[in-house]
């Protein structure tokens, strides 16, 4: 493998991450904001009204010097990623390698269930996509007082509004478990705790988030785009406060 810098989109299969790690290739998670640049730079390539995670992928790819991009387009990611793979192929001369991650070996979800700032939990889980080692000392589980269901949001600032005892559900939990296509796990939630069901605006998962929020005895559906506006944050604050969640 002659790559030094590789971008990943979604969660490529474990075997690929192992291979990249073995060759000491630097992995850049293109789903996360890495570049301070105007999102408008992506409009020649993607519609403005499109998933902000994938617009971020294009923005990152425009600014980083990469040798290849692995992009998962299986059931653990989405059709939007499949189409973005086609766009990336025409944008860059580097290999754009599509993968279908159907890994089923669970790594466990201790971070999702731990007592820790929610933002920190998300940082640790998203950082975890670049390695393949089981955490040696997983944090202990805490009794949850709130839940966050969904994908890692484009704008992490909403995570600061939750208490440390928030458990993570949905695709982020699948991500920690390294089984991104585990639909059963994605559907799981705790009906006994107030839960925010979050999806990126313009993502197909908005349907599932809204559906589960309606099913949940105490759920709030929420979506946001590139940045979460004041009203999205106010909704979270009010929801937690009015649900009696201690912050």
């Amino acid at each position, binding site marked *: 493998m002659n790559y030094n810098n590789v971008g990943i989109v979604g969660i490529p299969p474990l075997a690929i991450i192992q291979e990249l790690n073995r060759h000491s290739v630097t992995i850049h998670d293109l789903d996360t904001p890495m570049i301070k640049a105007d999102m408008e730079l992506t409009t020649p390539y993607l519609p403005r009204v499109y998933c902000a995670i994938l617009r971020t992928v294009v923005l990152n790819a425009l600014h980083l010097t990469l040798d290849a991009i692995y992009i998962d387009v299986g059931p653990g990611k989405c059709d939007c990623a499949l189409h973005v793979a086609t766009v990336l192929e025409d944008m860059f001369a580097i290999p754009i390698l599509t993968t279908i991650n159907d890994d089923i070996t669970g790594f466990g979800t201790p971070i999702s269930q731990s007592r820790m700032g929610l933002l920190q939990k998300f940082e640790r889980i998203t950082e975890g996509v670049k390695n393949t080692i089981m955490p040696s000392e997983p944090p202990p589980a805490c009794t949850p007082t709130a839940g966050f269901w969904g994908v890692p949001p484009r704008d992490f600032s909403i995570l600061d509004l939750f208490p440390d005892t928030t458990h993570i559900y949905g695709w982020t939990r699948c991500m920690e478990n390294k089984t991104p296509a585990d639909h059963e796990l994605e559907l799981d939630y705790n009906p006994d705790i107030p839960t925010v069901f979050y999806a990126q605006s313009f993502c197909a998962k908005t349907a599932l988030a809204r559906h589960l929020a309606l099913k949940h005895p*105490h759920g*709030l559906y929420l979506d946001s785009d590139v940045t979460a*506006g*004041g*009203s999205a944050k*106010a*909704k979270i*604050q*009010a*929801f937690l*406060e*009015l*649900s009696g969640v201690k912050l």
Partner: protein
Amino acid sequence: MLLGDFGTSYSKFLDLSSARPKPHIIPSKELGTEHRVTIATGHNGKRFTDWYVNELTVLARGGEQLIAEDAFVLLDCGSRDIKFIHYTNGRLNDMGWNSECGASMGFTIELLQRYYDLDYQDLPLPVRPFSVTCGVLGMSRIFDAVVSGTPDSEAVARFVMGIAINAYRFAGSPTKLYLSGGLCDNPLFVKSIPCEVIPLGRFVLLKGLEAIASQAGK
């Protein structure tokens, strides 16, 4: 203790230390440094206090004070946005805050009144509404209608009715709706909502702040 609801167009105050606390209201463009309060809410509120509570929380607390039922929908129509809370079994069930599609709704309704010199107290309910999503987009429907011969008053009434139906749908199309905000005083708007409407007036958020103040004092 001074409480303030700092809206986009109007700000409302309640002085709890006065013998008989009575709300007073000023246009927000007249706000100055002398208007600092102990607890504030509203779009402009953060600049005037060290203790800010967000509007949805305050709306819910106001609703809890003013509505005796344990299942209700309370919709607040402001100048700039609309928001609702929905309680079932005495507990929050759903909520929404629309500052995009509800944009400038109240503001536009007031602007049109002045521009066309209309009195909403006199305008009859139109037969059908314009299909509008927000104040800004709805304006062009009015201008188109006026250009094609519809009387100003009828075009504006159809716009107001469209906006009211929109707000009602946003709140989940309930059979009974408690209404908060300045539009409670607009009979055309109130009558345009296709369900039983109970206007609570423009001081619901002050009531909510009062509840928060008394809770904190305990």
